[in-house]
């Protein structure tokens, strides 16, 4: 299809430009490197690690780092590095699923509110109400209400970061709606769905995507926080938040457990935020 081809062309053009900007920006380079390393750790790690993440070995409890166990072992004598690999994979997956859900729902709400001014008030008041809860609290109560489980966890994470995405999407969509070409599409008789996809979304997606990147950091943090508070996936599933929580009981004997898990969370969230900021700066510069 003609329009699909052109979309990728445009995307390729701006990707090339973004890459050139990124190279000129050392923070961006560091963020990308760290993030790639964590991703490799979480995705390739489980395939090459010789240890099983679930098999307990009580004789090996809380061993400090050694040649056999690079990061030591946890309270059940499992290899901590392997636990972290699986844990990071789970947490990243949760964050990704949550943010995807939030982007789909929030993006749709934002676009609809901007496109149909009748819906603007009701939709945005709803979003305001959701936005007025701190997202951790919101996620907590949802997770508590719906009980543990993968679906409810993703829903809790998604719904708590959705309002922000909805607001940003509405803002981006409103500025596109103010452009003459929306009326230009209307006047040739385009149906609303074409206007919303080919005209509205195609021109509003960039800031939404940038914000979603930033929100991914929040989603990961929220997933870990829920896990830490015992509202995440139930043990023995490896998850960074619950690993950090487990280690808390032995903080004075074996600080490495909590420390390593927390450090890994940090290594995910920080570069994601740096990346989001840099993307936003790049977008701002292009706009000016």
């Amino acid at each position, binding site marked *: 299809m*003609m329009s699909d081809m052109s979309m990728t062309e*445009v995307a390729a053009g701006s990707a090339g430009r973004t890459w050139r900007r990124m190279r000129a920006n050392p923070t961006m380079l560091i963020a990308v490197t760290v993030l790639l390393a964590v991703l490799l750790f979480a995705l390739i790690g489980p395939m090459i690690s010789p240890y099983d993440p679930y098999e307990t070995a009580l004789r090996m409890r809380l061993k400090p780092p050694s040649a056999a166990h690079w990061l030591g072992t946890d309270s059940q004598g499992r290899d901590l590095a392997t636990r972290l690999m699986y844990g990071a994979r789970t947490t990243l997956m949760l964050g990704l699923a949550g943010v995807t859900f939030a982007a789909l729902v929030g993006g749709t709400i934002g676009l609809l509110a901007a496109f149909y001014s009748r819906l603007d008030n009701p939709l945005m008041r709803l979003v305001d109400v959701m936005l007025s809860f701190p997202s951790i609290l919101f996620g907590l109560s949802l997770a508590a209400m719906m009980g543990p489980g993968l679906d409810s966890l993703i829903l809790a994470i998604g719904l708590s970061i959705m309002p922000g995405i909805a607001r940003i999407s509405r803002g981006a969509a409103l500025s596109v709606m103010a452009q003459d*070409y929306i009326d230009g*599409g209307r*006047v*040739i008789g*385009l*149906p609303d769905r074409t206007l919303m996809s080919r005209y509205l979304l195609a*021109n509003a997606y960039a800031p939404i995507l940038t914000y979603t990147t930033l929100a991914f950091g929040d989603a990961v943090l929220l997933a870990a926080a829920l896990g830490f508070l015992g509202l995440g996936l139930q043990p023995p599933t490896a998850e960074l938040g619950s690993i950090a929580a487990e280690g808390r009981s032995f903080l004075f004997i074996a600080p490495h457990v909590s420390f390593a898990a927390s450090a890994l969370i940090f290594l995910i969230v920080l570069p994601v935020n740096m990346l989001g900021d840099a993307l936003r700066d790049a977008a701002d510069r292009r706009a000016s």
Partner: protein
Amino acid sequence: MTAPLLELRGIRKEFNLARGFFASKRILTALDGIDLAVGQGETLALVGESGCGKSTLGRIVAGLLPATVGTILFDGDQPGRGKARARQIQIVMQDPFGALNPKMSVGELIAEPALLHGLATRRTAPARVAELLRLVGLPEGVAQRYPHALSGGQRQRVAIARALATDPKLIVADEAVSALDVSVQAQIANLLKEIQARTGVSLLFISHGLSLVHHISDRVAVMYLGRIVEEGPAADLFARPRHPYTRALISATPEPVPGAAPDRLALTGEVPSPLALPTGCRFRTRCPHATKLCAEVDPPLTGEGPVRVACHLADSLPTYHVQKPRPAARLQSAIDLYRAAAAAQTAA
């Protein structure tokens, strides 16, 4: 005149400026009692200063805004909606930088309406695009380019090609040349007239520039604060304007002849807010001739001849003959030389 293509009767448009649930209503009346007709193949110009409602009227005609009150007839019938209206009426907007979807190539932009209305198939679309590009004087290669790579004039040509793609009977040109460079304005104005001559399309030409309107329109409607104050054939209206506002507009337009300016009919003050309209005649606060009657009675748009005017004093004011200064002889011959050389170049 045969049956008009487009007829507007008693069009009124109100905007509610109140925001939020609890705000009380603040009604802005942008248009009030507009009666107007556009004939087949005719160019009707709407002129007036900012806030007179000319663009609002254009958007109502194009179906982008609903009228609060009033009847629109197209070919003697109610105009269609959505896709049906798109086959009848198209609009070319002012801002050549904002009027084209930046994510679509010129070819896609022009093919889109043709495909949507079944006037071309995927297979015939490229040929149709090429034909329309030729019609608006753009090379075929432009089809692969994106709007940001084009100049303002080229974009406006693309917008015109896109408008022509549905074979409309009427094109609303809403300040379609105002944002362009002077030297390009003439190109686009010529193009619109050329297309009209070829296809018989009617033009509703909305502009604040009087000299261009004088040049290209058959009839002119002068608007002030949501009303038509004078309407008639361009030749009559520009030679002997009757409404004091039309006179002031014509005399305020700078002429390209040094020393021609001084004795102009200067208007004092500025257009009043449409939220606080004056009683009686809306123009009376700036009118040098206003009487007590003008403050009390709103003059209707009337007239026996071809020109209709909304002024109590239209018959009693002395006739105002517009004398356009002639360009100097040497300038005229330089322009003639230029025109001949340009024509020879185009022919070659």
